[in-house]
């Protein structure tokens, strides 16, 4: 099978959906040249740097029969549009009693590791998870990002594709033919029997690397990738937790009220899963600070394969 990058897989998803449905168009402060060449400047629009307006315009066009994609680029810039996201997009279908559909897809890169310091290294998806009315994904492979983005563009709701900055250049197998990945379905990336690592985005790969190391030490690790944050596939996560009885949750965001906290709650509030746990749930997250610039500081703040391995060894002991 051919291999392409995570970033290229996202662009393929957009191009394919734009060929499939002429109601799909794209608003971004950085119009991709290849997409402009294929679809023209009417459908691939380069916009002013005014994310609030773009976010609202996408919503308004969605309520008027189109299926816009609004690329915020970095999640950092979505904060400029918070009124439109929080007060408008997440509530518009509900507060109007479900009168019409708002199929708008927002995209944002998340995560750090790029030495860009506090404002450009954020993983704030749990802030959005807390809003009822938005679906969102956080894929970890080129295959998943393409398949999920296609599903999002076809979904009839405001949706967010969070995509990992660290994974943009990562390559992986993506088939030539048409496929989608369903929203709300987690994926077991590696089977194991001793400890479950539930990992998000870049940390899926760190967890897989840790699992290799740990296998040589005689510890069998199962790696589960939720892929979708809302709606979360709690059942797949719980099934793995019940199977191994030991769970590490790895997230590039800080722990406080994070996706990791939500996952821990989903596991432990389920009586059967709670009864099957042999140890407390362990979280391996970023330290709860703004992300610093200097490599020494940044690397200290983020979790990685060593920290995951250490947590697994602790639990398996």
């Amino acid at each position, binding site marked *: 099978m051919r291999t392409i990058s995570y970033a290229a897989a996202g662009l393929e998803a957009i191009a394919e959906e734009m060929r499939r449905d002429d109601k799909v168009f794209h608003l971004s402060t950085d119009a991709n040249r290849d997409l402009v060449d294929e679809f023209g400047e009417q459908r691939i629009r380069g916009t002013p740097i005014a994310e609030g307006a773009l976010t609202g315009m996408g919503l308004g066009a969605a309520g008027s029969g189109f299926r816009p994609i609004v690329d915020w680029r970095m999640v950092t810039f979505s904060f400029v549009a918070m009124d439109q996201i929080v007060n408008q997009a997440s509530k518009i279908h509900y507060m109007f009693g479900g009168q019409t559909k708002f*199929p708008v897809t927002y995209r944002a890169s998340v995560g750090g590791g790029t030495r860009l310091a506090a404002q450009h290294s954020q993983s704030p998806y749990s802030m959005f998870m807390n809003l*009822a009315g938005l679906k969102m994904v956080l894929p970890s492979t080129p295959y998943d990002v393409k398949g999920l983005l296609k599903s999002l563009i076809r979904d009839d709701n405001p949706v967010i594709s969070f995509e990992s900055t660290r994974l943009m250049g990562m390559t992986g197998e993506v088939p030539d033919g048409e496929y989608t990945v369903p929203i709300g379905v987690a994926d077991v990336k590696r089977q194991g029997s001793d400890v479950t690592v539930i990992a998000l985005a870049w940390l899926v790969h760190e967890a897989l690397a840790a699992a290799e190391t740990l296998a040589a030490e005689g510890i069998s690790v199962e790696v589960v990738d939720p892929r979708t944050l809302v709606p979360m596939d709690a059942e797949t996560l719980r099934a793995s937790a019940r199977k191994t009885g030991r769970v590490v949750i790895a997230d590039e965001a800080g722990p406080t009220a994070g996706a990791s906290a939500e996952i821990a709650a989903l596991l432990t509030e389920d009586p059967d899963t709670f009864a099957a746990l042999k140890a407390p749930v362990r979280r391996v997250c970023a330290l709860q600070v703004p992300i610093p610039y200097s490599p020494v500081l940044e690397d200290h703040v983020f979790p990685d394969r060593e920290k995951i391995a250490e947590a697994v060894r602790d639990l398996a002991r």
Partner: protein
Amino acid sequence: MTTTLTPEAQREMLRQMQIIRRFEERASDDYIAGKIYGVVHCYIGEEAVAVGVCAALNRDDQIISTHRGHGHCIAKGADLNRMMAELYGRETGYCKGKGGSMHIADFGIGMLGANGIVAGGISIVTGAGLAAQMEGKGRVAVSFFGDGASNAGPFHESINIASAWKLPMIYVCENNLWAASTAAATTLAQEDVAARAAGYGIPGVVVDGNDVLAVHEAALEAVARARAGEGPTLIECKTYRQRRHTERPGQVDYRTDDEIAAWMDRDPIPRLVEHLKGQQGQLTDAEWAAMDSEIMATIQSSVDFAEASPFPRPEAALEDVFAD
């Protein structure tokens, strides 16, 4: 007041304005009586803006409204029964009781919703304008907002894009002199919001917002320009909020008695009544009284409809979070 409109068309505008007036008087009464919940913001005194503008629109043209939205709904053709039922929190309301006064919408008539955030709707309706342009069928979109919203970012961001892309938009600023509890006189950088249009290279028009015929003339010109692909227009309607910011009892009122009295003399409804009476008797006292009685009966039946409607099932709170 001058116009080329037929007497019938002017009487229809009068009727629309009076429906808004009577609907809101009743909504206020029923809110004070505890039958309507939360908050009610009245549009009373500003009816000429919604009616004058919407009379220049087709059913499939789109508008977006504000927290003071009943007038825009009614002028665009919304059903009074479903509006009143929404205020009453009933299942038969426009939003099945999930929205209330600040969130009435009727997408079927191009009414994209009232909005509880000042300036919150401007970019959304600009997206509807973008959709209209891409669709290419000559539809236009109208953003109603107040002087308060004209000081917020979405006003500037949206008009800039609409001008750059020549979107079929009409931006209607209802300058009622008060943004909640702050006076336009102390918050606007210059007196006329319309003057800001120059900065975006589009026409900016100041109009007497209490003269429905003048508002209508300005709207016709802006709509024609938008349909012709010539881009947006900013219309500033000078008007006045005759009531306090909300109908909530005990709220501090910063307006002066002199200011209120001066604007009551310019009430848009008596002005049109006098105009029609003066024009070769195009309206008689008896006709006006009959029109008002008929409107009062219509409002009463909307209340009857609301009161006879069931409340939603409690579990319906879990429905409509997502489209299926």
